[in-house]
């Protein structure tokens, strides 16, 4: 879409924009600092400084090799993965809310998480245990989950379109039906799974960032930056989509093409995210909602804010998940839902009071 910005705002609003940008950036930075500094293994600030100084050859304080390994190989990739996944889920939520013209929409509506869960459960329950063992087998499950996520979303898109043209209402209904189907399939797999498989399926769907390694961070960096770039490029078009398909078309938006692309891009990015982390709920719903309450619905503000806030929030949540019951870890998806759902109810109650 064009570069004609909707920044016809008055100076007080522009300075508020500025504050928001700075604050959200700082929040992200704080999340990284907290996430890197806190964990099951104690790395006091002096050791942290020592490890960081070591990279440029300066020798201050002291640290041991385990701390260094944990920091570089485990904690840092995990924090970065949290930022990337949080950003991806939030921006995907923004896209879905623009697509469905509804602030209650989330990527789940197009069947992305249902497809991933079904595929993951299939891999766990139907393939022999050897298929997921070892370093090569470590890719079987994420590959399966990703394939399932994208395939199911594309099927939903197909069903929700009439002659190649996505229709929002039909798409929504298709998503509902597909989610019901994947749920049923999941139930079937749960039924035939044995004890160990059942627990694995359960734990996968509860979500976790513990699989964070640098290659995975690299892959998600690609997926997330692709998604955010796509969203930013179309920020004005998303505003126009909210006017309704016809009005958007009258203002020059290639509505059908854009809607198709929004579904595909969301499926790819969220598919990549859930493939490695399992289902992390409520982030794609609550973060855009929160950001919209603060900064308004215009996407040139909403997209950057959602990216930063989503990333920061997920890092905070993950830091809590891996320290609250150390050395064990709480499932991240449970934590985000436990925090997200009541918060969302609070938002709804507040909205009803003002309606």
């Amino acid at each position, binding site marked *: 879409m064009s570069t*004609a910005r909707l*920044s*016809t705002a008055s100076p007080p609003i522009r300075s508020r924009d500025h504050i928001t940008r700075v604050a959200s950036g700082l929040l992200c930075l704080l999340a990284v600092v907290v996430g890197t500094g806190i964990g099951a293994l104690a790395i006091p600030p002096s050791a942290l400084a020592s490890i960081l100084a070591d990279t440029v050859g300066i020798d201050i304080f002291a640290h041991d090799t385990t701390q260094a390994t944990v920091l570089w190989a485990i904690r840092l990739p995990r924090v970065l993965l949290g930022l990337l996944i949080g950003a991806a889920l939030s921006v995907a939520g923004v896209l879905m809310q623009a697509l469905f*013209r509804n602030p209650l929409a989330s990527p789940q509506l197009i069947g992305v998480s249902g497809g991933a869960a079904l595929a993951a459960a299939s891999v766990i329950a139907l393939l022999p245990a050897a298929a997921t063992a070892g370093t090569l087998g470590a890719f079987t499950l994420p590959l399966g989950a990703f394939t399932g996520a994208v395939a199911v979303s594309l099927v939903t898109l197909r069903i929700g379109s009439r002659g190649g043209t996505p229709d929002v209402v039909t798409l929504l209904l298709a998503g509902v039906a597909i989610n019901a189907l994947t749920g049923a399939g999941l139930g079937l797999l749960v039924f035939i799974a044995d004890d160990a498989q059942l627990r694995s399926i359960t734990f996968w769907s509860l979500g976790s960032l513990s699989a964070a390694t640098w290659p995975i961070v690299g892959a998600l960096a690609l997926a997330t930056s692709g998604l955010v770039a796509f969203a930013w490029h179309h920020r*004005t078009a998303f505003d126009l989509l909210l*006017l309704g398909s*016809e009005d958007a*078309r009258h203002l*020059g938006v290639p509505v059908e093409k854009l809607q198709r692309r929004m579904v595909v891009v969301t499926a790819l990015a969220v598919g990549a995210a859930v493939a490695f982390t399992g289902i992390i709920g409520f982030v794609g719903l609550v973060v855009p909602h929160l950001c919209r309450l603060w900064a308004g*619905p215009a996407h040139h503000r909403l997209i950057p804010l959602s990216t930063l806030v989503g990333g920061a929030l997920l890092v905070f949540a993950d830091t809590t998940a891996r320290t609250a019951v150390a050395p064990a870890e709480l499932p991240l998806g449970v934590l985000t839902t436990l925090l997200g759902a009541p918060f969302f109810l609070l938002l709804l109650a507040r909205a009803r009071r003002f309606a």
Partner: protein
Amino acid sequence: MTTPLLEATGLTVHRNGRTLLQDVDLTVRAGEKLAVIGPNGAGKTTLLRCLTGTWSPDAGSVRWDGQPLSTHSPRHLARSRAVVAQRAHLDFDFAVHEVVAMGLAPHSRVPHAGHLVRISLAEVGALDLHDRRWTRLSGGEQQRVALARSLAQLRAGAPDRARVLLLDEPTNHLDPAWQLQALSVAGRLATEGIGVLAILHDLALASSWADHIVVLDQGRRVASGPPIDVLTPDLLARVFRLEAAVVPHPHHGRPWIVPVHPLIAPTRSPNVHAATP
């Protein structure tokens, strides 16, 4: 000033076994105010959808600036053609000035965008709504803002290009005074060379506003011409099932439709507000 901008020829549309439009011709010309009237179900909305390219006709064609509609990209069209829909579907809390600024989206570079937004709002008498939230507006206020958006959309384009404004029953939510103002705003565009088409329900408004009227009935074009030629008692009876006399309006001379069957039985002095001769 009579250059054809948007031309529909032989438009025919069938949907679900029904014929919505049959062989309809229509031309929107530069600087001309065209009103499309007809009873409910006549096909007016279908016609509009074909003109905007939302629907493809089963037969016939629509040409913009001499070329078939489909050869123009949506964005290219949007730079010169604005549509004001019957209802706004926006359900998000944008500021009014942001909604108006959306009309500038099809254009690449708009200098003084904020200024253009203000002018457009002022033209529809809604400048005081500038910083208000869209969802807090009344239906009528939202209609005015939507019109302002279309004004901004057209004004941001080069004045020498072909430009058209399409209005779908623009006076829906407006009280009588504002109904007139909305149409006069649209009419003012015509003086700038913009072609204006309005689907109207109110025959009196059509009569006093339009340069040219097209009458649709059951999917067919049954009349086309200036108001004085089109609005005859015979047509009113045939198409609108309205028993009326048509006399020259005392103020502007255009056809004035006077229904023949009053709701109240006539008294000894039939003219309650007799015009002062």
